[in-house]
């Protein structure tokens, strides 16, 4: 594979926070300057480690929000009972330091040579690595057809809404809102189901490549339904997240 570049050991390093941008009430994008960054590919993640004064450490994985060649950024959703995300989304400021290691996870990577058509299905903050894939596709001038289906609780919870809308015309972007819909909403409503997927998913005969990212139950439901639509399991790449 062309992208099998040899990377060195994965070591913890200290990054400097270059920016903190609020995306929604509970979600922030954190721009990072990482001195010895090996370069990442769209879809990869990194690990963040926080260390308390008494030496207690907590590690979490966050998807990288940016495309190949762009500065590193992560997008983090605040979980009220979390150990790490309340600090990252509430306390962290530009100029602060953050310990991290990465990039990690070439399984969930899309590169232009992987082709498509591409089907991207996101639940909540599972949109983060898929946004990186959309950005990489656009920046590289790829003409691989792409459809995104993004499931969110409410319209206010949609991350990158403005940016995703800008891809329309070039990419097919659909939303489904599971908890409430604003008056006049013309997108989908409710959880992703077989009927919604059969409308949005490329026919299996086109040999599509699917990336599904979200909470565990969401991913397993969607992946199962794609296989039922004839997608080979090897063409449905999944990444689950959850917990604190």
């Amino acid at each position: 594979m062309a992208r099998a570049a040899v990377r060195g050991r994965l070591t913890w390093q200290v990054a400097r926070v270059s920016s903190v941008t609020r995306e929604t009430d509970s979600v922030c994008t954190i721009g990072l300057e990482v001195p010895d960054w090996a370069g990442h590919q769209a879809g990869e993640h990194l690990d963040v480690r926080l260390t308390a004064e008494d030496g207690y450490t907590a590690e979490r994985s966050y998807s990288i929000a940016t495309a190949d060649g762009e500065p590193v950024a992560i997008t983090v959703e605040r979980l009220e009972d979390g150990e790490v995300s309340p600090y990252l989304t509430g306390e962290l400021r530009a100029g602060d330091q953050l310990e991290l290691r990465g990039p990690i996870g070439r399984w969930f990577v899309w590169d232009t040579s992987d082709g498509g058509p591409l089907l991207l299905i996101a639940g909540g903050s599972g949109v983060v690595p898929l946004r990186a894939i959309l950005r990489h596709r656009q920046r590289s001038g790829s003409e691989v057809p792409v459809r995104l289906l993004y499931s969110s609780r409410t319209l206010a919870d949609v991350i990158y809404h403005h940016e995703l809308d800008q891809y329309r015309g070039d990419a097919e972007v659909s939303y489904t809102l599971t908890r409430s819909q604003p008056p006049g909403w013309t997108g989908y409503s409710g959880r992703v189901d077989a009927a919604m997927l059969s409308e949005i998913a490329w026919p299996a005969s086109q040999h599509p490549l699917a990336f599904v990212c979200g909470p565990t139950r969401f991913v397993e439901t969607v992946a199962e339904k794609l296989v039922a639509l004839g997608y080979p399991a090897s063409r449905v790449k999944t990444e689950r997240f959850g917990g604190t």
Partner: protein
Amino acid sequence: MVTLDGNAIGGLLHEVFGADMTDAEATCATCGATGPVAETVVYLRGPGTVVRCRSCSGVLMVISQIRGVNCVDVRGLTTLGPHQGADAAG
């Protein structure tokens, strides 16, 4: 208990094996199923990290940190090797 998948331990496995293992292929010693490490079932919150087969739930790997050392039990695997090509996985 919410399970995750092999992507979630990509960093830990890189630390243990010295390479990105998410697209490596694992063969289950219990049922013989083969698939990418990324697609395994992962329990993070036990006393140690438990990796199970998505087909039969057999334990593939257990990784525990004991006094700063990663102790790795791979008796549930018959093979763990490089990815054989996109269409062979799964």
